[in-house]
């Protein structure tokens, strides 16, 4: 395949454009997608190519248009709807939690809802408590959504294309700190299946699972740790529903130690879920307590000083890894 570097945000645009060309049923809907091209340029240029019909600008009515997306999908359209920031999930909460993802089940499996929601997540921009959430744990907690959380342009493109072709509702999370990062992605057509983790770095001393922005922090921590002779295995699940449990469990069987790095809030979050899976399914292999490096369950504060204090960082990852690798049982 050809070597080529693109921005994360370009990967999103390419995936959208390619799928819109491939399938007439795909259309975009959301606020300010046309002239603005979405708040961070994710849909820039698409309106120019596809026009009003395939790119719908909506009023600020998330409950209405997300429900409308689900309804259109139920009859055969394949809308890709933007919820500008995941923090707005409550505005459309009824449609996000009770309708789109439950329809197929409630109706006995006799229909399907091939809708994608794209949404921005994450802190790092001092955007404060209404524009910095991750919240994917909540989406994963409620039945019916597949959840895609890419960490690099290659995955972003391949997974978005798969998400659009998937017959179930898929929530696709775009981390705002990643949109302007670069990475390799071939020009040729490719897709990535949902439910396959990526081992970003191999190691024997501890398993570190991380998503999106946190993958990059974990990899930096890995560099620092390796200088001290500690080699961690960094796993990026890429999708959390479906979840590639096998890759995580196999890794823990090898390393005997698990640190989960998660930007979502700690309490009842994804970090708890991964910990619980391993505590049940890889118990015998565990040589140390499972550590979570997650965002404490507080609203994301505005001031950079405070934001930095709650979002997981390299230091906290290194500290947790050292705790598990140096752990001596007290019994």
């Amino acid at each position, binding site marked *: 395949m050809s070597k080529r570097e693109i921005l994360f945000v370009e990967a999103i645009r390419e995936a959208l454009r390619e799928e819109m060309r491939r399938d007439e049923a795909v259309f975009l809907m959301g606020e300010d997608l046309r002239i603005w091209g979405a708040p961070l340029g994710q849909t820039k240029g698409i309106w120019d190519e596809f026009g009003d019909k395939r790119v719908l600008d909506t009023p600020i009515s998330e409950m209405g248009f997300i429900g*409308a997306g689900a*309804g259109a999908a139920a*009859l055969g359209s394949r809308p890709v709807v933007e919820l500008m920031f995941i923090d707005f999930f409550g505005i459309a909460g009824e449609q996000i939690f009770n309708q789109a993802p439950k329809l197929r089940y409630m109706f006995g*499996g006799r229909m399907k809802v091939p809708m994608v929601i794209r949404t921005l997540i994450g802190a790092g921009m001092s955007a404060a408590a209404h524009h910095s959430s991750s919240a994917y744990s909540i989406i994963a907690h409620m039945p019916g959504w597949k959840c895609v959380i890419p960490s690099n342009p290659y995955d972003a493109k391949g997974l978005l294309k798969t998400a659009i072709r998937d*017959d*179930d509702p898929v929530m696709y999370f775009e981390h705002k700190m990643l949109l302007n990062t670069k990475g390799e992605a071939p020009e040729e057509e490719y897709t990535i299946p949902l439910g396959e983790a990526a081992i970003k770095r191999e190691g024997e001393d501890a398993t570190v699972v991380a998503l999106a922005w946190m993958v990059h922090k974990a990899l930096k921590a890995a560099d620092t740790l390796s200088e001290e002779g500690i080699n961690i295995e960094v796993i990026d699940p890429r999708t959390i*529903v479906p979840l590639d449990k096998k890759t995580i469990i196999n890794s823990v069987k090898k390393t005997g130690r698990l640190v989960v790095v998660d930007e979502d809030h700690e309490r009842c979050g994804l970090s708890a879920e991964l910990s619980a899976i391993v505590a049940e399914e890889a118990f015998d292999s565990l040589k140390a307590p499972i550590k979570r490096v997650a965002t404490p369950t507080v609203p994301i504060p505005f001031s950079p000083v405070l934001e930095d204090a709650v979002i997981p960082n390299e230091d906290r990852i290194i500290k947790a890894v050292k705790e598990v690798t140096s752990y001596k049982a007290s019994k």
Partner: protein
Amino acid sequence: MEINKEKLLEMYRGMFVIRHFETKTKELFAGGKIPGFVHLYSGEEGVAVGVCSALRKDDYIGSTHRGHGHCIAKGGDVKYIMAELYGRETGCCRGKGGSMHIADFDVGIMGASGIVGGSIPLITGAALHFKYKETDQVAVAFFGDGATNQGSFHESINLAAIWDLPILYVCENNKYAESTSISSVMRVKTVADRAEAYGVPGITVDGNDVVAVYEAASDAVERARKGKGPTLLECETCRHHGHFEGDSGTYRTKEMVEECKKRCPIKRLGKFLEDEGFATKQEIEDIEKDVEREIAEAIEFADKSPWPKPEDALKDVFVTPYY
């Protein structure tokens, strides 16, 4: 508008099917055959039948917690609906939905919702799909008076207005939301008054007059099919029973309920049919007998149907397997 004997008898039959279905459902619920929460449509048949008579099979409706009537009127098979109320494998939703979640996409029933106002955005999306695909299908959102105080109503009708979507918003104004009188939760006189806020036509009709409902709906459907956008159609009606089975209904006096029953849309159409010579008493009785037989068969079907298999509880979340 010309309306012929056949259509009138069809509407009579349609309303009677619903009434009899609900009467039996009430008994079956009391007898423990039907579990869950059950909201009967008796008394409101003029609305569902009047509106659905103006629709084609490939048009779609969105329904509510009080949905049996809509689904039957749109062409749902009473056998599969009854089996669904029973929670059986043969139900239209394989026993997963129950009374509040009936759907049958094959006949244009996009689904009921246990959440007040919950299906309004969805069926608005059906209309969006029709416009996107450039078909001439039409969508109908059914909802109660109480639902018009939900944000979903506001946002959806506005979307339909700005995009000229082919949809009817049909408010079944039975004057109550559970125990709450609509006059205590709304300062305007009619729900139709709310249409103005969206630049949409708002019409109020007597929901007990099925012919009037049919005519108003037909006009609105024609508008919609021609790409002229949505209509808010308010049908004044009332329910014969409590809000749901188990509701003592003390917020309405006996007289109010009696008065309501007097305005019964079925009796009214029956009288009209006889008075205007469209049908004889005998013809009407024959229809009723036939319906009773049909419902009896549906009950038997439900009663004899197998239960779903416990392991099926994990199926149908996703098209691809559960995880």
